[in-house]
């Protein structure tokens, strides 16, 4: 039904979005790639000579890189395990009939809407502070010594904070998926005497498989870029104990002003994210055809 005329109009309507996104992608990306081959430090003005892969060699051989890579994987993996397992549990629970579903659901999803800097600071000061935090009070009541979370277990503490922020997302998506489950199937299983556990294992969990994959992939994209939570709680420390790849690149670029090394790190981060992105894109693309 589309005529030649409407085709041309359509192209004209799509053009601004495409051109803007193309510029947004190609210009900075090209610059990052170019800078990554230069010896370029903002504190040392002058010629920025081409040095080939020197920045990459420097960045990749820096022990901090390995640490930050491991931290990144622990952060992403830890949060994924907590939010997916917790999200499945909460989705199964909230799918049950109960009184006050609306209010329960509002309370559960709320943390997702709290800006990262607020949730990080609230947890850091009002909960994890070893003197005045609520956890210190709980420790006092239990008669155990107060634990300085962000000093003694910085990465684990950040995993906790980030999990609190993302648990609602996983729950909400898995709950939405759960509600599309045909209830007749469950009823039939129940009548045939299937236990609650086997109904969960053989009917609900397989039904959720696709939604779980989506949650894992989307969260991974966002979790690879966790930044604000680290900046306001630990500044990547103590030492580099809670530095992830994003924070390391930020530190190289904007704290040490080493544009060359920072850019090489940026390219490494892009490659890592792309590995995940390819899988996610495939899933979403399949859905588009359906």
């Amino acid at each position, binding site marked *: 039904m589309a005529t030649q005329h409407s085709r041309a109009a359509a192209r004209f309507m799509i053009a601004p*979005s495409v051109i803007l996104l193309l510029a947004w992608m190609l210009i900075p990306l090209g610059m990052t790639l170019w800078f990554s081959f230069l010896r370029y430090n903002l504190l040392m003005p002058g010629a920025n000579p081409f040095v080939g892969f020197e920045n990459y060699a420097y960045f990749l051989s820096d022990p901090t890189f390995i640490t930050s890579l491991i931290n990144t994987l622990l952060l992403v993996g830890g949060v994924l395990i907590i939010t997916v397992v917790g999200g499945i549990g909460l989705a199964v629970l909230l799918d049950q009939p109960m009184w006050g579903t609306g*209010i329960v659901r509002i309370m559960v999803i709320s943390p997702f809407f709290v800006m990262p800097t607020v949730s990080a600071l*609230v*947890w850091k000061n009002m909960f994890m502070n070893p003197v*005045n935090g609520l956890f210190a009070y709980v420790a006092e009541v239990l008669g155990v010594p107060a634990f300085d979370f962000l000093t003694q277990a910085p990465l684990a503490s950040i995993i906790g904070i980030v999990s609190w922020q993302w648990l609602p997302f996983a729950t909400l998506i898995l709950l939405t998926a759960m509600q599309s489950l045909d209830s007749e199937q469950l009823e039939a299983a129940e009548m045939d005497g299937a236990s609650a556990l086997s109904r969960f294992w053989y009917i609900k969990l397989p039904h959720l498989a696709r939604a779980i994959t989506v949650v894992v992939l989307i969260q991974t994209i966002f979790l690879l870029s966790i930044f604000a939570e680290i900046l306001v709680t630990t500044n990547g420390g103590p030492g580099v104990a809670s530095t992830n790849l994003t924070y390391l690149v930020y530190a190289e670029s904007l704290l040490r002003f080493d544009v060359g090394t920072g850019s090489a790190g940026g390219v490494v981060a892009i490659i890592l994210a792309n590995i995940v992105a390819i899988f996610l894109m495939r899933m979403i693309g399949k859905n588009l055809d359906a």
Partner: protein
Amino acid sequence: MARAVSNRRMAINTGVAWVLAILIFFPILWTILTSFKTEATAIADPPVFLAFDWTLENYETVQERSNYFRHFMNSVVISVGSTLIGLLIAIPAAWAMAFVPGRQTKNVLMWMLSTKMLPPVGVLVPLYLIFRDYGLLDTRIGLVIVLTLINLPIIVWMLYTYFREIPVDILEAARMDGAGLSSEVLYILTPMAVPGIASTLLLNIILAWNEAFWTLNLTAANAAPLTAFIASYSSPEGLFYAKLSAASTMAIAPILVMGWFSQRQLVRGLTFGAVK
């Protein structure tokens, strides 16, 4: 479909769910409560839950000391501005892709999505330098530009999934009746598209309001929205719990309420239609 459930099971479900929900919500509740305490009450041992002299002084102090309202307005301008501009650019694109799909439509959509997968830190250096050289650092307009671009793919995608649900038959019927393109858009499409556009607007304002990578890296005292302003409480002001809480409560309250209204859209928008 609602299965008959015994009252006992209902009570157990309710009890467990409420306990968990309150635990999850507790940090927010605690922040709101603390914002109405004096600094001394805020760190009282044992902690005081409700029985304290409620005060508004923290809200006043936060405003007086740091011109809180300015940062609040920065957040409003940046999130609403970037969303409106984004919609302006994205509505025609999504409309065209939904109603005049060509061979390349799917590829264009997937490509747009792929730009969203780019980790921001990968382009931090060039963007910082461009901003520095063009005087955009710490300006509202600079952040509006960046947030428009990073959220444009989500806006196009959300609108596309909504527009695609508008039945094309109606448009064809209107065309048969001699409706031109403009009246088609004005009288038929617009009313049907408004709910989708409204949801997209809502979700995108939420995302832009809470964006905390570019806002932290590209602003300082002048254009800092609340995300960046609150970060300045990391130390030592953060130890003044009541003031931190007041500043935080005002920063999250409007978006929390908007978020409650957009639960469904959130799923659709953030999974790019993969889960509905």
